[in-house]
């Protein structure tokens, strides 16, 4: 009798199976015995459905660092095999199997003696899915355009491309503790980067005739580390060596100039005159670094004193052959463009020295002294080039490539007094000195700071941590022309006036008064409830030294950052009112403000015009609000769980620019150029909401259903609807890529089997 399996049959079989499973007695412990060994683990299989999936052109932000395929997927598999006495074990775990962002790890070891590990991690980075690129990559890193060049307008209808790269990281380590006081570790990490990312090639004068292209990424980083630690009860000694090697399979990128040809392509205007056919830009050169480190600590018998010290030496080398000055054949045969030497003989050596002592002269008093020295010495050759070729297009007088050294020293002294069981007071002073080379404006800067901190537990349920830290940075002198002298540019008064404004004080070197306050309160009324409000405030007031008062107003005037204010306030909550319910939530508001002043400085007749009324001020403000939260609830404990989580982040950036005085001193055209232009605000918002219900049955199985909503919205006039060719913006060509808004609704189901 031939049986035809029909729909009813299938349903009946499933019903029978379901009934059988539900009434089957609860199985015993799920580990699988294998003689003296046990096997445990879990595996999951899922499927993803999109109710609303972003279109391809809108996936850039959605899949920026992850892969979200629809259909079946394997979220994770974990296996652990171990001897029943736990002496030996091995674990294997893999997540996101088969996806671009998959990762795996293997661990094996003898508990307390040695451990071997291997990790494999793929990190995708998707920059855009809507770039428009007309050039063809005829060979790796050479982007060619047809000859004759198409009209610039044609770039707007170029094929759409994705721009992405992927990092594949393989890491292997072996860690052994042959004796209780000796630990040895060796580790090797290889990061392989492949893909492309946005890049540029310029062919013309400032802002003109540049072509946004791709940077080919074919790079490898090898990182090899070995280390040893000897540790006894009263002293510890560590030694280590690191070799880091960076390899770039490519040394240059070439691209054809969109504005080359006679007749010039439509849209190029005068930029085509004298334009080179092709440009070539260097890519990061191969380099390597050797670093040797010795650390140690010893406990002394007096006053519970502990000394720590560290010495580290690093040698960074780079000696890749230079490219020629230019790929433009119009300059071939010019002897002034012969390279003085083949390569840099790049040699940077750094020294790090740390010394610290912590001591307890009194039972409730802890004294801490620290000193730190970081010395960066650039011993590479200083090479003099007689001539440069700017953008493969024009010749310019050459200069020396200066080397830039610096040294940073820090010293700190703190005293902490446990005034009472619930009150601790800390006070301290600190010092930071930067000693920069002759190639920077400020030879010596010293920053002194004070610190006052209090940790109070006024009642058992409340902990308050408050820190106030003012600091004052003062400099020896500000020499605007030091970088020019470092490049051996002749002391030409006319040239000097075309250089950096003597009114500028760069914010990383300028004198500064800083006020900083940090507050954290931790409220734990019960063991299961914790509320942590935090707040911080930082105010930087930049000063002018030497004082400048060009307008004779009796008021110091300088250009650069004038002041910066940042403050943040937030709260984090974690609460489990009952065992089966847990709630987390948090909110943060961040505000960053910076006031900068600059001056429009046109050049007329070889001289820079320094009109006071050409000054402009920008107030730059970024505010970010972030909210996150989650609830986990065991509807039926150990049978039915439900969880929901969400996050929201909104950022607003504003640049408000104005002229303190209306520009009137120049020609009409110069005045217009000096006038402040409005800058529309830009904003972005990310919302994510995720909920899932999990049903646990037969102790080992879990079936989950979930829903995820995600939305990204951005308004940024600088990239919204940016076309490769913007006629009013000149002859330059952009990729025209944009992080487009998206909304996604996703459903998923996962079945998981656990045998532990």
């Amino acid at each position, binding site marked *: 009798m031939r049986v035809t399996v029909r729909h009813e049959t299938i349903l*009946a079989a499933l019903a029978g199976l379901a009934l059988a499973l539900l009434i089957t007695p609860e199985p*015993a412990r*799920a*580990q699988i015995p294998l003689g003296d060994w046990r096997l445990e683990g879990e595996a999951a299989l899922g499927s993803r459905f999109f109710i609303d999936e972003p279109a391809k052109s809108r996936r850039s932000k959605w899949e920026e660092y992850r892969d979200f395929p629809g259909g079946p997927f394997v979220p994770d598999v974990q296996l652990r095999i171990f001897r029943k006495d736990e002496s030996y074990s091995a674990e294997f775990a893999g997540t996101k199997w088969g996806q671009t962002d998959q990762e795996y790890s293997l661990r094996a070891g003898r508990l307390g003696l040695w451990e071997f590990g291997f990790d494999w991690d793929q990190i995708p980075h998707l920059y855009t899915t809507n770039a428009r690129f007309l050039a063809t990559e005829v060979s790796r890193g050479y982007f060619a355009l047809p000859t004759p060049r198409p009209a610039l307008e044609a770039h707007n209808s170029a094929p759409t491309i994705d721009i992405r790269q992927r990092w594949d990281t393989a890491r292997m380590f072996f860690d052994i503790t042959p004796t209780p006081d000796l630990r040895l570790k060796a580790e090797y990490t290889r990061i392989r980067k492949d893909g492309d990312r946005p890049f540029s090639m310029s062919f013309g004068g400032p802002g003109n005739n540049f072509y946004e292209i791709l940077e080919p990424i074919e790079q490898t980083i090898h990182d090899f580390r070995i280390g040893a630690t000897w540790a006894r009860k009263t002293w510890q000694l560590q030694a280590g060596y690191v070799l880091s090697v960076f390899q770039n399979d490519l040394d240059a990128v070439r691209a054809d100039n969109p504005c080359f040809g006679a007749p010039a392509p439509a849209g190029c205007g005068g930029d085509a005159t004298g334009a080179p056919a092709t440009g070539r830009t260097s890519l990061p050169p191969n380099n390597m670094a050797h670093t040797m480190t010795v650390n140690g600590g010893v406990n002394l018998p007096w006053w519970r004193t502990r000394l720590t010290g560290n010495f580290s030496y690093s040698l960074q080398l780079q000696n890749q052959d230079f490219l020629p000055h230019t790929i433009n054949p119009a300059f071939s045969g010019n002897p002034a463009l012969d390279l003085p030497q083949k390569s840099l003989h790049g040699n940077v050596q750094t020294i790090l020295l740390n010394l610290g002592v912590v001591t307890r002269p009194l039972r409730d008093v802890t004294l801490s002294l620290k000193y730190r020295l970081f010395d960066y010495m650039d011993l590479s050759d200083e090479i003099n080039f007689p001539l440069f070729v700017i953008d493969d297009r024009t010749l310019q007088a050459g200069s020396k490539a200066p080397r830039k050294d610096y040294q940073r020293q820090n010293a700190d002294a703190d005293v902490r007094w446990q005034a009472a069981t619930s009150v601790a007071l800390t006070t301290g002073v600190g010092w930071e000195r930067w000693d920069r080379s002759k190639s920077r404006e400020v030879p010596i800067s010293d920053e002194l700071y004070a610190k006052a901190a209090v940790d109070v537990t006024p009642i058992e349920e409340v902990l308050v941590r408050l820190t106030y830290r003012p600091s004052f940075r003062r400099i020896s002198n500000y020499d605007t022309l030091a970088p020019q002298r470092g490049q051996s540019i002749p002391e030409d008064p006319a040239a000097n006036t075309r250089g950096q404004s003597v009114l500028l004080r760069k914010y990383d070197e300028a004198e500064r008064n800083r006020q900083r306050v940090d507050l954290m309160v931790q409220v734990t009324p019960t063991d299961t409830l914790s509320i942590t409000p935090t707040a911080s405030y930082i105010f930087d007031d930049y000063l002018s030294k030497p004082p400048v008062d060009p307008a004779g107003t009796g008021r110091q005037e300088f250009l650069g950052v004038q002041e910066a204010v940042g403050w943040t306030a937030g709260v984090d909550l974690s609460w489990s009112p009952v065992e089966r319910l847990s709630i987390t939530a948090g909110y943060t508001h961040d505000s960053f403000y910076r006031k900068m002043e600059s001056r429009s400085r046109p050049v007329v007749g070889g001289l820079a015009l320094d009109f006071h009324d050409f000054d402009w001020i920008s107030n*730059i403000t970024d505010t970010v609000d972030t909210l996150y939260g989650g609830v986990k609830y065991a509807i039926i404990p150990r049978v039915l769980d439900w969880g929901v989580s969400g996050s929201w982040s909104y950022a607003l950036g504003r640049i408000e620019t104005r002229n303190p005085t209306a520009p009137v001193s120049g020609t009409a055209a110069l005045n217009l150029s000096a006038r402040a232009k409005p800058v529309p605000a830009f904003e972005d918002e990310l919302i994510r909401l995720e909920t899932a219900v999990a049903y646990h049955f037969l102790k080992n199985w879990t079936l989950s259903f979930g829903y995820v909503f995600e939305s990204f919205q951005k308004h940024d006039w600088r990239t919204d609807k940016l076309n490769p060719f913007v006629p009013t913006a000149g002859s330059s060509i952009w990729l025209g890529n944009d992080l487009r808004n998206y909304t996604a609704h996703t459903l998923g189901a996962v079945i998981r089997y656990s045998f532990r």
Partner: protein
Amino acid sequence: MHTHRGRVTSRRNFVVGAIAGLKAVVIAAVLFAVPSSAPAQKDAAAPGTAAPATPTALPPGYVGADTCNACHEDASQRFSHTRMGRRFLHQPRSQAERLGCESCHGPGQAHVDAGGGSPGKRNLITFGKKDPTPVEQRNEVCLTCHSTGDRVFWANSAHDARNVPCTGCHRVMENVSPRHQLVRPTELETCGTCHVQKRAAQLRSAHMPVREGKMTCTSCHIPHGSLTQALLKENSPNDNCYRCHAEKRGPFLWQHAPVIESCMNCHDPHGSNHERMLTVAKPRLCQQCHVETQHPTSPYGRDSASLKFVLGRACVNCHINIHGSNHPSGFAFTR
């Protein structure tokens, strides 16, 4: 219309289906029931049961893990699944580890004599939020074994100086996180309990892949203490970044001074609302330090003359090798 022949067929198919379901029960029984009867498993020191008491005599005042287990079976069960639990209960290497629970909590005789409960806890370190034991003393217990590796520079490090207990970040008694015995499922949530702003920064549009699970706080930081500011892993902030971004290390023929001194002069590694995690929008970022003549000095906005300097990636449209250039003509980082 449902015929007699159709009713017979349906009934037969249902029987076939039911038989198939019963077969599944038999298969399930074979797979799941047999292991439960394996005698070896009952004798194994499987998770959830404390190891048999060692024959070594206990020091005075100690009662042994079996005694603790009699009342604290749930806690012991959870602890036995942890790395420390597996070692203490199954592979102790020293007398201290053989003490099991009491190696950390202290001698339990007084607690047992008092019949358990709070009065008898006065000699014990509970490591709970309301434990009256000074934090320093609690931490000393952990540092007895965990003083090497990353903890060599714990003394007066940023967290130690503020009396942060080890149990503020770590949960020893059960597995909450996949690794490192953290109090919350992920490092970001654990560190974010106090560093609320840094946790929020991960949600900004330009960020490193921390919220995607590809990086963690300890990818860059050593919370137990280090010799660099901000508890970084490497000798300097830049060396920290070069570990993954070694292409920026150079040295280059043409160096950009603020780059070699600190990546943080321009970038916020925790996240930013500006592209590439920049601290300030371009071109203003660059105009803070560049007041040479002509195009660096103009107050650009949305007018047509400004567009080529502000659209897309602004200054880096031309000055592409902004981190440094090895090109002979790359002094302005355009090559």
